[in-house]
């Protein structure tokens, strides 16, 4: 019986523990744990692992070293690979049959003697189902699928592991589009295997989404690998980022038979990266050809429509021509008829007018002749009368002139002088009154036979 005051040697304690442990685990037992790390085989062919156990939040609860001795390594690792398609690697949850022992010098030893690959596969399947159920419950699993796939592609973000096997093939085809400036690809690197996968891929997605670039799609690809490799991407955080993204996700991370959580939530899921770029290529080329064909069809239809219009216009033109010609002919006939009618009427009217004018002319001429005759007769009569009266007036005037002339002759100075009268003239004018004379005035006295000049001396 041990007491609190007892003192022991370390070896005593270790031997005691060793006994107890060996008594507790007298034969091999099955344990489950996650491979935290696994070393490359040592020179002797032994494998050294570190096993861990984590809680639901991923916090480490405990860890311990384990080993696969060279004698068992080949069969154990081959069994695992055959069943899972993958090497035994860190991050995998495994169920292993172990011999537990405690050595006072090497402490607790976990020696793996067998492995149950079905547990690993089952565990992956269970985890996948659990994530999908959670996303369904949160009603977000369908969100990215419901985003309308882009009509075409101009810029795409590619998330992939560096130097991934499938990335080279993807890049070869992507470069064709990139070089021809049809579609640009921006590559984001992330870890796709191991315990850092969840954080690395999630961060890469966030980097793409938080960038200022409006991508047409985000592509998540990785090259070929086993089911266990694919399982590293079956993480709730990665799937949630995809679900909540407003940009459609194209996933090409697995194989046809191995669908993961990302295939479940992605907008489009492809088997391989080559199929992803094939789809993009196909959409771009198809769209271009589709639009080219549409344009050709439009041109054909436009040409057909133009021909139809041309035909219609030709018909209308012909119709207008025929109608016009008919109308012109009708009008011409009508005009000709009118012309003939007018011509005949005019001719008749002219003839009538001519006859009327002739008649009028005759009448006027006759009347004028009569009038002229009357006027001439009248004129002759008047002329005779005037002549007769003129002669009478002339005779009368002649008699008067003769009488006047006789009178004038009577009053001529010589005749007056003959009667004993003299005529006194002053400055060429006859002086009839003496009051007009003054003493000294010179007078010319006209006698019957001569003229003398006298000077006025005075008067009474």
């Amino acid at each position, binding site marked *: 019986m041990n007491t609190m005051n007892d003192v022991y040697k370390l070896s005593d304690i270790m031997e005691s523990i060793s006994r107890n442990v060996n008594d507790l685990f007298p034969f091999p037992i099955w344990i489950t744990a996650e491979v935290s790390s696994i070393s490359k085989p040592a020179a002797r062919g032994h494998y050294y692992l570190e096993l861990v156990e984590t809680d639901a939040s991923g916090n480490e609860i405990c860890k311990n070293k384990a080993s696969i001795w060279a004698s068992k390594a080949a069969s154990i690792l081959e069994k695992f690979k055959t069943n899972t398609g993958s090497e035994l690697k860190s991050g995998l949850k495994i169920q292993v049959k172990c011999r537990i022992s405690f050595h006072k010098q090497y402490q607790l030893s976990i020696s793996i003697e067998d492995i149950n690959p079905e547990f690993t596969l089952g565990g992956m399947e269970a985890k996948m189902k659990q994530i999908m159920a959670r996303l369904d419950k949160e009603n977000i699993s369908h969100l990215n699928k419901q985003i309308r796939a882009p009509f075409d592609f*101009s810029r795409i973000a590619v998330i992939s592991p560096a130097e991934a096997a499938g990335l080279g093939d993807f890049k070869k085809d992507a470069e*064709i*589009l990139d070089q*021809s400036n049809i579609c640009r690809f921006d590559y984001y690197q992330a870890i796709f295997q191991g315990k850092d996968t969840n954080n690395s891929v999630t961060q890469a997605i966030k980097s793409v989404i938080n960038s200022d670039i409006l991508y047409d799609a985000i592509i998540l690809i990785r090259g070929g690998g086993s089911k266990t490799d694919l399982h590293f991407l079956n993480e709730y955080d990665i799937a949630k980022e995809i679900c909540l993204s407003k940009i459609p996700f194209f996933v090409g991370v697995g194989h046809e038979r191995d669908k993961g959580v990302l295939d479940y939530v992605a907008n489009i899921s492809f088997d391989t990266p080559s199929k992803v770029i094939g789809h993009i290529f196909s959409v771009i080329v198809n*769209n*271009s050809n589709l639009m*080219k064909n*549409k344009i050709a069809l439009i041109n054909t239809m*436009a040409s057909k*429509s133009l021909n139809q219009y041309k035909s219609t216009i030709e018909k209308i033109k012909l119709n207008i021509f025929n109608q016009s010609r008919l109308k012109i002919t009708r009008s011409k006939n009508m005009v000709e008829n009118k012309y003939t009618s007018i011509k005949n009427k005019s001719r008749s009217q002219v003839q009538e007018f001519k006859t009327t004018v002739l008649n009028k002319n005759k009448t006027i001429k006759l009347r004028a002749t009569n009038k002229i005759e009357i006027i001439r007769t009248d004129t002759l009569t008047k002329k005779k009368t005037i002549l007769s009266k003129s002669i009478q007036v002339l005779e009368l005037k002649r008699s008067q002139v003769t009488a006047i002339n006789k009178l004038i002759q009577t009053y001529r100075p010589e005749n007056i002088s003959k009667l004993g009268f003299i005529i006194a003239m002053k400055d060429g004018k006859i002086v009839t009154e003496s009051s007009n004379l003054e003493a000294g005035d010179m007078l010319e006295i006209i006698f019957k036979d001569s003229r003398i000049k006298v000077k006025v001396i005075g008067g009474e």
Partner: protein
Amino acid sequence: MTKETQNLEKQYQRLTEIEAKFNKNEVGLNDILELVEESSTIEKEILSRINEIEKALMEKIDKEEKA
């Protein structure tokens, strides 16, 4: 979605509209030339895209053959 892709989709939709108009015989004589010009403008861009892809593909084939 990038502006380039949106623009391409608009062009596709416009071509579809023009095609539908012709199919329904809704295009007047005055509109024909305008619509054909519009589709011709789009055609230039599309042919340029196709030419660029073809050119890049040919270069790729040449490189592969030389390799």
